[in-house]
């Protein structure tokens, strides 16, 4: 039996997976947009984004626009690579499950 790939635990979290997938389709996105798209709470979203930031998968930029704070997130190259690997592993696992 061929060895099945392991899924990256940082990417595997449902909200983190959704966040990485969202960020892969845009250049950068604001915290409020990510919150609206995922339907998550501020606290949970902040915690998951912090985990992704610590893993080096997302980069954060904080600035003021018209005197209002704005937090922008963008996916790093490492994040893109991690998501790509995760999708490949997922497909391999699914292929294995279908084949068996």
């Amino acid at each position, binding site marked *: 039996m061929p060895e099945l790939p392991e899924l990256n635990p940082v990417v595997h979290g449902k909200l983190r997976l959704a966040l990485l997938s969202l960020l*892969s389709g*845009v250049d*950068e996105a604001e915290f409020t*947009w990510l919150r609206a798209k995922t339907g998550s709470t501020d606290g949970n979203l902040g915690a998951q984004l912090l985990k992704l930031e610590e893993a080096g998968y997302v980069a954060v930029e904080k600035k003021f*626009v018209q005197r209002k704070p*704005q937090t922008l997130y963008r996916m790093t190259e490492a994040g893109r690579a991690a998501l790509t690997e995760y999708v490949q592993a*997922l497909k391999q696992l699914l292929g294995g*499950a279908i084949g068996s």
Partner: protein
Amino acid sequence: MTADSEELGLNDRLSLIETMIAEGRRTTESWGWTFLLWGVAYFVAIGWSAIGNAQVAWPVTMIGASIVMAILISRTVRSRPQTTVGRAMRAIWVAMGISMFMLLMCLGISGRYDLHLFVAIVGAMLGMANATSSMILKWKMQFACAVVWWASGAVACFGNEIQTSIAFLVAIFFCQIVFGIYCMICESRKRKLGGAHA
């Protein structure tokens, strides 16, 4: 967890990734109102010119419409994500707007302005911008608008003043007013679908 439920979970994850990527890439920006705004601005400028003060009507209306658009954009797009497609779209329309404004203003100041030249320039530039956008977005309806603008530009080159005016008014009506309302309806439908999905 059984093998079946694990498989379902993995399938769900793949589906989640696909949905979220599509959600991120989907143009969430609403630009239909800008077509409508500029269509109304053109009609206001034409109406004002018909009464008199043609040399004041166009610059004042165009600058006024630009200010209104800038204010509305600054209020609406702040929380939207930046996408490559969105940036490409903005680049096309901003560059077209600056080129058209500069050229028409210079023609007006130099006294070399005339209706045929004006409609030919507006038709060609709006045709170019609409065609480029439609090719990027793969949107046939917008390409039809480009064809209408090009046709109005061609009529301006060969037709008399009445034919040129009619061609210009028809192009504004269909490519700005009707297309703007159509865009707004499409965007509203997309937002509803997005809301239902979330």
